[in-house]
């Protein structure tokens, strides 16, 4: 078995992995990217629409243009990467086992590991739609790969379930390729992607968005012949008698993304509610020296935010290799972050008391849209550590806050911190 030794191994060569590797290489540490596809670049390569790069480059780029800039940087820095290489296991002592068809099974011993495996789409199995299993049922990202990379059209007439951004972008893409999109069906009473996409991908082309509806049956035995959609009530139970048949030959599912953490879980790292690993304020998982960034940690709205997070993971991995690796680490005392009223989850899950002097970047999402709000951080004695006003929140927009808890005079003995998004009291409204 061929063996390698590196300072930092990066699992996944997408937008997160490449950005993290660039930071590590610039610090003159040995880095190696392990990528299972036949080229580096990841899913951003198949997102051929524009709208990327406004944060990172202050210009509007397509997905491929965005990631090409990082690929070019990685190549200029001679960052090594292995393609067609599938990681099958990593251990808490940071040994990675991977396979490819040139070298067979390989072993990589690393001082630190950066997890950047991204996420994958929920499939039909995750949402239990009854019916046969005909051809013509795909996830929106699968269809995106067929249309934009491989050059195939998976069908002619479509219904898209789920109004996430990929689903809406595919609705426009397929319309541009001469296909007919009959409807985008959304179980929530509101669109789940960005308004920009609702306007430019659906309204521009007269594609109906049917909210508070879901697909309750798929028709056809060999090939999809249509779907039944039904109205749902507030509890998402279907309303009997509201069924409508829509003829189509293809059903695309855009019903959510799950961080891909099989490797992480098997290595013994703790996984949090949304499927990403539990991390501290340094993006370090519960395994020492193993960091996570990008969509494997939490699903982001924008690749720019993935890049920013990956750079942080890279810097923290450098610090770990230079200052902590091989040294005895005592038990860390940590503050636990929890999701309160109208908060779906919060990252980081843990804050090291030793890092209270540092600025901490919190990211979280709300459960439901709301207006005129207050974001509050409370300690375990219900003391408000921080608060700020917010005009509008929506689950599809991640909220990011940078806070220095020492400056906010947090009680150092505090064990937990809860974030909540609550309606603004009257007094505050008058201040506006």
């Amino acid at each position, binding site marked *: 078995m061929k063996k390698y030794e590196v300072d930092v191994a990066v699992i996944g060569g997408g937008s997160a992995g490449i950005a993290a590797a660039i930071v590590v290489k610039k610090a003159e540490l040995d880095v190696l990217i392990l990528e299972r596809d036949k*080229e580096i670049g990841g899913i951003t*390569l198949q997102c*051929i*629409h*524009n709208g990327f790069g406004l944060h990172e480059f202050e210009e*509007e780029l*397509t*997905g*491929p*243009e965005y*990631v*090409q800039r990082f*690929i*070019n940087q990685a190549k200029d820095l001679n960052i090594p990467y292995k393609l067609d290489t599938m990681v099958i296991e990593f251990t808490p002592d940071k040994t990675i086992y991977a396979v490819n068809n040139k070298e067979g099974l390989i072993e990589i011993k690393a001082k630190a590991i950066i997890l950047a495996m991204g996420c994958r789409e929920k499939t039909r199995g995750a949402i239990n739609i009854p019916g046969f299993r005909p051809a013509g049922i795909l996830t929106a990202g699968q269809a995106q790969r067929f*249309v*934009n*990379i*491989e*050059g195939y059209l998976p069908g002619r007439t479509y219904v898209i379930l789920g109004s996430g951004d990929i689903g809406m972008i595919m609705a426009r893409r397929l319309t*541009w390729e001469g296909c007919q999109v009959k409807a985008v069906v959304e179980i929530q009473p509101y669109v789940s992607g*960005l*308004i*920009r996409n*609702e*306007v*430019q991908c659906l*309204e*521009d082309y007269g594609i109906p968005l049917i909210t508070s509806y879901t697909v309750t049956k798929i028709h056809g035995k060999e090939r999809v012949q249509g779907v039944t959609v039904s109205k749902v009530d507030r509890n998402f139970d279907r309303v009997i008698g509201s069924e409508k048949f829509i003829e189509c030959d293809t059903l695309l599912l855009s019903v959510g993304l799950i961080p891909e953490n099989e490797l992480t879980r098997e290595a013994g790292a703790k996984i949090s509610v949304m499927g990403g690993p539990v991390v501290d304020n340094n993006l370090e998982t519960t395994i020492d020296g193993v960091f996570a960034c990008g969509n494997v940690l939490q699903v982001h709205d924008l690749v720019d935010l993935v890049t920013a997070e990956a750079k942080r993971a890279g810097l923290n991995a450098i610090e770990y290799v230079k200052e902590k690796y091989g040294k005895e680490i005592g038990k860390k005392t940590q503050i636990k972050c929890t999701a309160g009223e109208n908060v779906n989850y919060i990252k980081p899950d843990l804050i090291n008391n030793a890092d209270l002097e540092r600025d901490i970047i919190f990211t979280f999402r709300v459960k439901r849209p709301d207006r005129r709000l207050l974001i509050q951080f409370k300690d375990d004695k219900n003391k408000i550590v921080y608060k700020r006003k917010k*005009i*509008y929140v*929506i689950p599809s*927009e991640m909220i990011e806050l940078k806070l220095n808890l020492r400056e906010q005079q947090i009680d150092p003995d505090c064990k937990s911190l809860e974030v909540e998004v609550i309606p603004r009291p009257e007094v505050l409204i008058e201040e506006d």
Partner: protein
Amino acid sequence: MSTKTNESELPEGFKDIRCIICPTGCLVHVENINGELIIEGHSCKRGEEYAREEFVAPKRILTTTMRVEKGFLPLIPVRSDKPIPKDRLEETLKLIAKAQTTAPIKMGDTLLENVFGLDINIIASRDLIEM
């Protein structure tokens, strides 16, 4: 709040435009009343600008793919180097669908020049090596 401007060749009638500048998504009413543009319903300057442009001359960056010969992949993602008038998108898409290019290609290479005399080029969105 309403603002008035005089512009030549304004479209007739009115449009209710959902603003995409921020998540608030204001519904902005734009109306041409005897050659004067009335814009109402926006809550910021950028929203007003956006609604005016959407009414007067809506444009979009076009992103699609083009066939490639001898490429590592069969398609190359492409885009227009400037926004295209919305009513010219369809014919531009058809033109690109019929075109073909050859690898190797570098990001930014012009693949179709000055389409329909609009001073718009179709450029490659990534590098593509030969097979």
